[in-house]
């Protein structure tokens, strides 16, 4: 166990590549289309598995928001750190965690990334500096600030990407964290995924000031909004933000305007949104948008799309089979890791 795990030297290759996918050189846009589709299809399968009661508990999907994980993770290096929320399947996959590690976790198996102790909301991966799925809204923000403080004090060049939703901006922890990060010029980027709803409460019903970037800017950090439904806009904003933070000028804030096409969780009957509003946002689906763009540019064929879908299907099927076959975490290990073992040497 370690708190400062360095990814392997070849981590980029390892965690960007997936079996059977990288057969020939592709453009960045093509890869981003594939990565978004991969998250979409994975979560669609999660819905089926939830209905089949293979996955239990809360399940929060990012369907509709895939441009954000794909765009943000591309802006980071393997040495950077990520702090995420309970709606983090996309973040985890885009960071390089395997479908098998995620599904094993959701199945409550030993093969899961958290040994079945976390479930969908609590995915962790020390090797990829993925500090979890935090299910207390706003609870990850002070931790991200502290990670950034450690990077600064240790004199590294690393940045911390902190993802959270619009609901978190009503929490005191957002304001405490923004102030502290700006006060101490810490290398953290606050990525606010504004999907317009804090569970069932709309932005306008929750915030007196709905211009989230404006509020963040009041703490003395650079803050701006970007189109979270356009992966190219996300990656551009994320790269600028990460480089700013890396340059030593302190934190910054990017409001990524997005929308979840499905309900808050599998328990949510979604009674608080207009069907028309959902339809309107579906027209801005980031996956068809990029598909059409690439088609128009003549760099994406029907065969390519078929191939992407087939490869993803194979990957999902394999991950499901692995999760099904994996042993359960032994009950005898229930109380392991309440405290560290063995005691670390100094």
């Amino acid at each position, binding site marked *: 166990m370690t708190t400062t795990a360095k990814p392997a030297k070849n981590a980029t290759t390892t965690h960007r590549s997936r079996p059977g996918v990288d057969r020939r050189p592709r453009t960045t846009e093509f890869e981003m289309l594939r990565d978004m589709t991969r998250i979409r299809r994975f979560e669609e399968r999660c819905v089926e598995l939830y209905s089949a009661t293979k996955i239990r508990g809360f399940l929060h999907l990012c369907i509709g928001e895939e441009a954000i994980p794909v765009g943000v993770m591309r802006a980071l290096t393997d040495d950077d*750190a990520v702090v995420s929320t309970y709606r983090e399947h996309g973040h985890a996959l885009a960071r390089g965690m395997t479908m098998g590690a995620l599904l094993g976790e959701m199945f409550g198996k030993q093969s899961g990334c958290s040994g079945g*102790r976390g479930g969908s909301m609590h995915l962790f991966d020390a090797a990829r500096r993925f500090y979890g799925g935090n299910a207390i809204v706003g609870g990850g923000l002070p931790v991200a600030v502290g990670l950034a403080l450690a990077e600064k004090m240790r004199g590294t060049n690393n940045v911390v990407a902190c993802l959270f939703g619009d609901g978190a901006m009503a929490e005191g922890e957002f304001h405490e964290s923004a102030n*502290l990060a700006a006060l101490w010029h810490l290398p953290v980027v606050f990525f606010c995924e504004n999907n317009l709803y804090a569970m069932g409460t709309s932005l306008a019903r929750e915030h007196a000031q709905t211009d989230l970037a404006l509020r963040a800017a009041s703490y003395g950090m650079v803050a701006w909004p970007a189109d979270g439904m356009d992966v190219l806009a996300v990656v551009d904003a994320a790269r600028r933000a990460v480089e700013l933070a890396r340059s030593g000028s302190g934190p910054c804030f990017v409001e990524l305007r997005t929308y979840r096409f499905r309900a808050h969780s599998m328990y949510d009957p979604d009674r608080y949104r207009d069907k028309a509003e959902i339809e309107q946002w579906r027209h801005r689906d980031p996956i068809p948008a990029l598909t059409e763009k690439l088609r128009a540019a003549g760099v994406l064929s029907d065969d390519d799309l078929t191939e992407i879908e087939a490869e993803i299907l194979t990957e999902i099927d394999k991950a499901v089979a692995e999760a099904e076959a994996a042993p359960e975490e032994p009950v005898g290990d229930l109380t392991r890791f309440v405290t560290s073992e063995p005691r670390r040497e100094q």
Partner: protein
Amino acid sequence: MTAQATAQVELTYREAMREAMREAMTRDERVFLMGEDVGRYGGCFAVSMGLLEEFGPERVRDTPLSESGFVGAGIGAALGGMRPIVEIMTVNFSLLALDQILNNAATLLHMSNGQFNVPLVIRMTTGAGRQLAAQHSHSLEGWYAHIPGLRILAPATIADARGMLWPALEDPDPVLIFEHGTLYNVSGPPPDPSISVDITSAAVRRAGRDVTIVTYGGTLSKALDAADELSAGGVEAEVIDLRVLRPLDDATLLESVTRTHRVVIVDEGWRSGSLSAEISARLVEHAFYDLDAPIERVCSAEVPMPYALHLEQAALPQQADVVAAVMRTVDSRA
């Protein structure tokens, strides 16, 4: 300085804690201190006085009034390879950081299947006796002792104030240190540096055969004074200082109780759902047939701590209460 003058130099509890922090920051460059007014002000109880000047603002960090923010930042810094000491002014204020302490510090290791441990030390003042009223005076360490994943320490002596911090920093998991506010000005001879201090066991502070008084922190001195008073009347009380409130050192308690057969628990926390209740339950579970009298508890009155001196003193466990409780257990002798 003459040898005689050297021998007379006493150390206060406050200075002992400060020395412990100075030593830790000197020994390990990953160690730093942060909290409200720990730097330029010198600490709200002057514990960190002089450390800013010695170690600089990078390692002695004044924070904004954001308990949740800076405790969470301590957790993040610990995850990121540092060894933070976070100071919270009082346990009442720590409730603003309870989310971070419970949902992150105590939970991340298990929830991540052992991937992320949190080597964080949080120090805070606890307890009453200084007429600071109901929002600065409670003893809530028992609440924290409820939480799996935390180690809870209550140094009651100069030696423990001096010696517990370093092993706490060496612990790979979060450790909370509760410093009773009435102890800071207590002074005594400097502890012998050759005697190592553990953060696992309770200590027998006074040997006795007739009754076991179990206590910790700010009420230790009251228990010892009560034991002296009882001794004059022929009752020899053993006094156990818990020192570590989680995990509890059951073995030391049981060993004593199986000899004395009588128990009085003195806890400045409220009685209901308290640490005293937990200890009482454990002794009943494991030493029921060794007990010759009902277990007695001396706790704070179940009121928010009042300001006025006479009311505050009436609300707190006192030496006379301990003596009376002991006499009830002894008088029930068959």
